[in-house]
């Protein structure tokens, strides 16, 4: 078997260097972001339909959500 572990199955632990606390006054956990910020700092796991190119689908998404800029993570054409 020449199979190797895909990067998504590599397990890492978190190790502690020092104790510290975070002040709730600043920042915001990702799941509590207000919608306008959530859109600005958002990703969509889109199910690309058959037919249109990845580029076209990205342009539609941008239009549907009324955002200024969007990009996709790898063409699905080849």
């Amino acid at each position: 078997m020449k199979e190797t572990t895909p990067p998504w199955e590599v397990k890492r632990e978190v190790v502690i260097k020092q104790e510290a606390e975070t002040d709730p006054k600043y920042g915001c956990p990702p799941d509590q972001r207000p919608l306008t910020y959530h859109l600005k700092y958002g990703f969509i796991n889109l199910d690309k339909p058959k037919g249109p190119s990845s580029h076209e689908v990205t342009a539609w998404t941008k239009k549907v959500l009324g955002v200024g800029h969007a990009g996709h993570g790898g063409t699905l054409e080849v």
Partner: protein
Amino acid sequence: MTGVLPIALEESTKTLQVVLAGGKEYVGVMKLHGDVNVEKILDVFEEFVGEIFQRPPLRASVKRRLRTRNIYYNRVLEIDGRNVLFKIGCQSGTYIRKIIHDIGEALGCGAHMAELRRTRAGPYMENKNLVTLQDLSDAYIRWKEKGEEEPLKRLILPVETSVELLPKVYVKDTAVDAICHGAHVTIPGIVKLSSKIKPEELLAVYTLKEELIALGRARMSTEEILEKDYGIAVKTERVIMRPNVYPKTW
């Protein structure tokens, strides 16, 4: 082709490189041009695992020189006459149509790819939070016309999901704003970190609230960072968080 197409909105486009470089998984149908016995098909599929050589196809967007790609796994799921259902996990930039053609040549009868669906791109998977354009459009209209935020909020994932597979360092509140202004990450600012970090590895710099601050390049291993008291541990490469979210202390 259909399947997982991660889309980055606005500021998130800064982490697209991470998703692009991430591994991919596909499920597809190979159509054989002749009859071959099952045993042989299974053998040849197994030959196309590990380091393989590929020359990008004519219509590729990269230079057409021979290069190696790593195939993590390549499995036959089902065979029905001349149709072979397969699943392949591979390094980014692997041309699946080409691999299938080459498998056909190795089998002697020739083959082509009849259908292909991407089931994973980096951290994004088919069976987790996959949405359609229709879902998005419906949720957007509910927000704009009825003021309902929840449906849209649920369909959009935070930028942090795009760097889920990277090693991480977590910094103190007092270190955050300097990094937002481009400063490197120094050892006294680090609270906790991932195991197995190697120098030169790309990593994500986080706040203690699990917010992504920046992408950076490790200058030290996990062990060195734990051992040392000062020095630059991570060189900041791409800042995602806007400045002035955390207090300025420098």
